[in-house]
C-alpha cells in the first residue's frame, strides 16, 4: 500500500496508447508516473528551487562542519578567550583580523565558530519542531474532521485557542517555571504551531470525507483508521508538505525570538538568537559584525526554506503561478503566443504610459 502517490492536476498524465504498446512488447507491467514523481520533475526544473536548496545545503554543511571549523581554527564556541580573542586594548577583533574570519565578540569568542554551532541549534529546532507540529497537526486535524461531532467541537475549539494564544508570553512563563532548555523550546514551538496545520487538514478532511471513494472504502469494510490514513491522508499530502516546508522558517525565527528574549536555549549555548541578544549592547560602538553575521545566517536559512516552500507548492499544484518563475518561459517557447494575454499585457503596460 503506497502512501506516496499524490496527484496534482492532469499535466503530463497521458495514458497514451503507443507507450503502453511498447511496454507490452517489453513484457513488463506499465507503471503510471506517480504524481509525486511528476512534482519532483517539476521541482527539478525550477531554478529558484535549486537556489533555495543551495542556501539550505550551505547552512546544513555549516552546521555539520561546526566541530571541524572549531578544530581547524582552534577556537571554542563556548569559552571566552580574552587573551587571544581581543586585541591589546581588550577590544574584539573585526572580521579578518588575527585569523578570525568573521571577527570575535565582546569576550573574544570566534563569531564564525559560534554562527556554525548556532546553525546546528536552529536547524535542529526548526526541523524537529516542524516534524512534531506537522505529525500532530495532521493526526488531530484528520481525527477532528473525520469523526465530527463533539470530538470535532473540542479539537476545533482547541485549535482556535492555541492560535489565539499569546505564545511569547506563554513561552516566557514556561521557561520561568521549568528553565529554558532545548527540549522545552522544541516543545513550545511545536505546541504553538500544530494548530495551523491541524486547521487546514481538518478543512480538507471535511471535504474529502464526502467523496464517493470514502463511501466505496466503507462499503468494502474498511475501518475508520484505514479510511483516514490510507484513503484520505494521501489526498492531503500536498498541502501538508507545503505547510510543513513553510513552517520550518517560522519555527527557526520563533526559536531565535525565544533565545533573544532569554527564554529559549540557555545563554552558554551558541544560538543566533543568543548571539543577537548578547551583543546588542556592544553594537553601538561600531562592532557591526556582532549582529550582521548571525542575522545573515538567519536570513539565508529562512529565505531558503521559504523559497523552497513556494517552489514545492508550485510543483505540487501547477495551477498556481508565481512571478519570475523561469520555467514558465520554457512553456511559452514554441507555443503559439496567446493573443489575449498579449493584448492584456499591452493594455496594462500601455496604461502606465498613456496620460
Amino acid at each position, binding site marked *: *500500500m503506497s502512501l506516496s502517490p499524490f*496527484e496534482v492536476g492532469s499535466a503530463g498524465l497521458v495514458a497514451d496508447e503507443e507507450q503502453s504498446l511498447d511496454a507490452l512488447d517489453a513484457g513488463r507491467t*506499465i507503471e*503510471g508516473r506517480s*504524481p509525486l514523481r511528476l512534482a519532483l520533475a517539476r521541482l527539478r526544473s525550477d531554478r529558484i528551487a535549486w537556489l533555495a536548496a543551495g542556501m539550505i545545503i550551505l547552512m546544513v554543511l555549516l552546521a555539520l562542519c561546526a566541530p571541524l571549523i572549531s578544530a581547524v581554527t582552534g577556537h571554542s564556541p563556548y569559552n571566552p578567550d580574552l587573551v587571544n580573542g581581543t586585541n591589546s586594548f581588550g577590544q574584539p577583533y573585526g572580521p579578518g583580523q588575527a585569523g578570525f574570519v568573521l571577527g570575535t565578540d565582546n569576550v573574544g569568542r570566534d563569531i564564525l565558530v559560534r554562527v556554525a554551532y548556532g546553525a546546528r541549534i536552529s536547524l535542529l529546532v526548526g526541523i524537529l519542531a516542524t516534524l512534531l507540529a506537522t505529525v500532530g497537526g495532521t493526526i488531530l486535524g484528520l481525527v477532528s474532521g473525520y469523526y465530527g461531532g463533539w470530538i470535532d467541537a473540542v479539537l476545533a475549539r482547541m485549535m482556535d485557542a492555541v492560535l489565539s494564544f499569546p505564545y511569547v508570553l506563554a513561552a516566557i512563563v514556561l521557561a520561568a517555571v521549568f528553565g529554558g532548555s532545548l527540549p522545552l523550546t522544541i516543545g513550545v514551538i511545536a505546541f504553538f504551531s500544530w494548530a495551523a496545520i491541524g486547521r487546514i487538514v481538518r478543512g480538507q478532511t471535511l471535504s474529502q470525507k464526502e*467523496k464517493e471513494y470514502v*463511501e466505496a472504502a466503507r462499503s*468494502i469494510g*474498511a475501518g475508520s483508521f484505514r479510511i483516514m490514513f490510507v484513503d484520505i491522508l494521501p489526498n492531503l499530502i500536498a498541502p501538508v508538505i507545503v505547510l510543513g516546508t513553510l513552517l520550518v522558517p517560522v519555527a527557526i525565527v520563533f526559536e531565535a525570538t525565544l533565545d533573544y528574549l532569554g527564554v529559549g536555549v540557555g545563554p552558554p549555548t551558541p544560538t543566533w538568537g543568543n548571539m543577537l541578544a548578547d551583543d546588542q549592547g556592544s553594537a553601538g560602538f561600531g562592532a557591526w559584525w556582532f549582529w550582521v553575521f548571525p542575522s545573515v545566517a538567519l536570513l539565508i536559512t529562512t529565505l531558503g526554506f521559504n523559497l523552497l516552500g513556494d517552489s514545492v507548492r508550485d510543483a505540487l499544484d501547477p495551477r498556481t503561478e508565481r512571478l519570475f518563475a523561469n520555467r514558465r518561459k520554457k512553456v511559452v517557447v514554441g507555443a503559439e503566443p496567446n493573443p489575449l494575454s498579449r493584448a492584456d499585457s499591452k493594455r496594462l503596460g500601455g496604461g502606465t504610459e498613456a496620460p
Partner: protein
Amino acid sequence: MVDAGVPVTPARDLQPLPAPLPDAGPLLRLENVVKHFPIKRGIFFKRQVGRVQAVEGVSLEVRRGETVGLVGETGCGKSTLARCITRLHPLTAGRVVFDGVDITQLSASQLRPYRRRMQMIFQDPFGSLNPRRRVGSIIGDPLAIHGIADGPERKRQVQELMEVVGLNPEHYNRFPSEFSGGQRQRIGVARALALRPSLIVCDEPVSALDVSVQAQIINLLEDLQGEFGLTYVFIAHDLAVVEHVSDRVAVMYLGKIVEMAETAELFGSPRHPYTAALLSASMVADPEKARSSHRVVLYGDVPSPINPPSGCRFHTRCPKAQPLCSVEEPPLRVQPGDPGGHLTACHFPVAPGERLVGAEPAISAAVTEYVASSPGAEEGTP
C-alpha cells in the same frame, strides 16, 4: 465490446461461490425501510428543525440470481435506499434482512462478514476511485481488508480480476486518472467483484458514461452475473437500461415504491399513473412508434421530501387524482385483474389501454387548500 483491447475471458481460477440452496428464501428482504435525514440549525445547541424523508417505508424482496431494477426521478430516494441496503447509512426504521439475517443493527465489526457478500458499484467513476492510489491497490483493497490475500498472491488475484472485467492487467500500477470513464467503471466492477459477493448493488452504474460505453458495461455486468451467479439491485433513471437488464422493476416516487412488477408486465401495462407518465416520457428509438405514442406531461415539480403531500404522495401531480387520494394513502397491493407479482399503490389505477389525457393535476385548488389547512401539513404543499 471491450475498450481496453483485452477480451473478457472466463478465468479458471475464479470459482463462483457454491450455488445457493434453491429453497433458502430471498437473498435480500427490505421490511418497511425508513430513512430520514435530520435538518439541524443552531451553532452550539443544534436543534432539529425538520427532516428529509428520503425513504419512507420501502418493502422489497430480491430473489437469488435475479436483477431488480429501481427507477425513479432524481431525488426520489433510490440512492439513499441503495446506501441503506449496504448499511452505508444507518436506518431510521425498518429492517434489512440479508440471506436470512437481520443486519440492521449490526456493529461495524459484526457487519464485516456481510460486507464480503454484499458489494456496491458507484455512479461516479471519477469520484469513487481514490485519485491518489494505484489501480492495483484500489482493486486489492477488499482482499487486504478481509485478509484474503497478500503480497504476490494479492497481485495475481487483482490482475486476474482486471482480466475478468476486461482491463489490461499490465495497467496494475497506473492511476485512475490514466483511464477513461468506461475503464474506470470496470475498475469499480473489479473492486466489487474481488470478494466474490452474492449481491451487488449498482447505484446508477452507467448514467455517467457515454451511450456506447454504457452498453459495454451492461454487457459486462450481465456476463458476470451468469459467470458468478450474482444478484443485482440495479438503480437507474434510464428506463431503456432498466428494461434491458432487469427481471423485475420497482418504480419509486418521493421515497416510496409506487409500482412493482415483472419487467415485461410493468413496461407493457403500467397501472400507476406515475409509471405511465414515466414510460411515456422515455425516448423510443423508432420514429413510427414515437409519433403514434402520446406523452403524458406532468405538471409541476416533485414536492419537497421535507414536507411531502398527505395521502398519496403523487396526488399533487396526478391526472387521475380524486379527493380520496389526498387523504388516504393507497397500499401497495395487487390490483384486480393483475398477475400476482404486480403491485401498485394507487386508488384509481390506470386501466389497460387507458390514455391519460388532460395531464393537468386533477385535484382542484380547493382540495389543496383543504390539505394545507389540515393538521400535520402546515405549509408547502404546492
